[in-house]
């Protein structure tokens, strides 16, 4: 398994499929790892459950995080990431369905790097995801 460059946390399988398709078209899908909910994301970060044997050095360059997830929300995951000594420097981009989301302000307070509203219209959606991936992966050099 190649090193994970983009960690993608999204419970909605349709959104996940469309997002991954967009990133695939930008040539970024092979370094993307999809986690299906908040609980799995926490297991991944703290190397628990099926991720117990994961190499801690295997650190993604970008985390795409959906906010609205069952059981453990994106906010909680964000909080854990940003308080984790090893992962807190990784840029986190919040994916949300609406700019009305009351949690957006909270996300910035917790240290999210940016947020994007998933557009309904697919052209827009693909375009936004591609841009996002490109920006954070190629233009924006993460701190080491």
């Amino acid at each position, binding site marked *: 398994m190649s090193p994970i460059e983009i960690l993608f946390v999204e419970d909605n399988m349709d959104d996940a*499929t469309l997002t991954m398709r967009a990133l695939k078209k930008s040539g970024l899908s092979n370094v993307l790892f999809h986690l299906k909910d908040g609980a799995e994301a926490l297991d991944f970060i703290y190397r628990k459950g099926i991720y117990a044997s994961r190499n801690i050095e295997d650190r993604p360059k970008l985390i795409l995080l959906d906010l609205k997830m069952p059981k453990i929300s994106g906010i909680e995951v964000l909080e854990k990431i940003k308080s984790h000594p090893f992962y807190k420097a990784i840029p986190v981009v919040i994916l949300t*369905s609406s700019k009305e989301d009351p949690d957006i302000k909270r996300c910035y307070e917790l240290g999210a790097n940016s947020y994007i509203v998933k557009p*309904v219209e697919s052209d827009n959606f693909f375009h936004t995801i591609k841009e996002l991936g490109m920006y954070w992966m190629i233009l924006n050099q993460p701190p080491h």
Partner: protein
Amino acid sequence: MLNNESLHFQTLSESGKKIETSQKVFYTVFHKSPVMNSITDAITGKFIEVNENFVRFCGYTKEETIGKSSLELNLIPHPEQRAKIITSIKEKGYSSDVVLEVQTKSGEFKWVSVSAHAVNINGRNCFITAMVDVTERKKTEELLLQANKKLEALNADLEAKVEERTKKIIADEKRFRLTLDNMLEGAQIIGFDWRYIYVNKALEKQGKYSKEELLGKTMMEKYPGIEETDVFKSIQQCFNERVAILKEIEFTFPDKTIGWFELKIQPVPEGVFILSVDITERKKAELEIKKLNEELEQKVTERTAQLINVNKELESFTYTVSHDLRAPLRAINGYAKILQEDYTSVLDNDGLSSLAAILNNSKKMGELIDDLLAFSRLGRLSSPPSEINMTGLIKTVIEEEMADNSRDIVFVVQNQDLIPAMGEQVLIKQVWANLISNAIKYSKYKPKTIIEIGSYYKDDRVIYYVKDNGSGFDMKYYDKLFGVFQRLHSQEEFEGTGIGLAIVKKVIQRHNGHVWAESILNEGSCFYFSLPTINS
């Protein structure tokens, strides 16, 4: 004296020499006497002899006098005074010191004191009369009398006045007492020994004791424990400092009931005078109002909490709607896009146009959801109103609206200037944007588009308008014009979701303004809105 003399004179008349000497003496005494002497005939009243002083006094010469009576000479203006003398002489043989008025030749009135005796001279009955001028005395007496009379009159007047005053004072006192007794406020006078000196009827009611029970008793006797109360301390203060004290007190009666009173305690010579108003009912009402207010506040707090709750629910509903409706739409649109991009070869024309319809409609629905959210957001956004430079604002709006527009549109701003107004700039900008973009949109079929923008004062508002020469609308559908998602044109004619004017209306209503419009189909429309002036 004269009488004795004349008697003596008569007895001596026998001897000639002696008589002669006596006559000389008499003559001298008679004529040179400072008293005015005269001898008259007792029967005729005519003068027989008068002395020098008499002549000088009366002003008639001796010749004019002798042989005339005093009546003939008009010497005595009040004959009845003379009659008195005659009567006295007839009764007693003499009259002494009768004061009467005489009129001298010059017409002057004088007072004389007259004494007269009946004498017989040489067998002839005569009256010998002596008069003394008492005019000065009489004048003094007269003055005195007048002064006395005046004094008496003054005295009488004074007495009358005193009496009148006394009556008035008594009446006043009676009236004041009656007033005091019957007035609505309680009144009492407390002596320095704390005893009741006076109480009125209202106080009997307020104090719950009759007048008879109170008068002469001390406050401590009637209200045991009063020494510990505020009112007692205030009365004591008034006893000592002699200044009026105004106070509202709560008083517990011996029967444990409670009353509230407004007291005015003021110093009087006997002690203190206390005026009291029973404010128990008012106080009860106040307490009731206070209680009601507290309850009301409690209710308001509860309602506010409920409202906040409802608002939160609404917010989360809005979020849910936007999130949950958008997610499936995204999927529909996204998968349709995949079909369009990757599976065109396996679809026929019908399939492809169906796919295009799916894409178009899901996109449309996304826009509707976005508009709905934008509309609901208006209710929540709030910033304090400020003065808006409308000229600058519409310039920005026009620039933004024309950024992607290649049409030739003429904007006419009335007077090149708009009146400023108070408002939330972000929201008012949205109003202008909606109205101007509408004006642009609905005049797209006209060869030349002219949009007029202006403002004017009306009452205490500023009215703004945006006028176009576009397609206009039928006024019979006016009531639908500002409704959410209400459209008067088809999607094919003019694209849009029907949220723009609803937003305009909501924003302006939030500014306590009005929105209205006039239109003639195919000729154009004019939209108006009002805002508060910067001075309001």
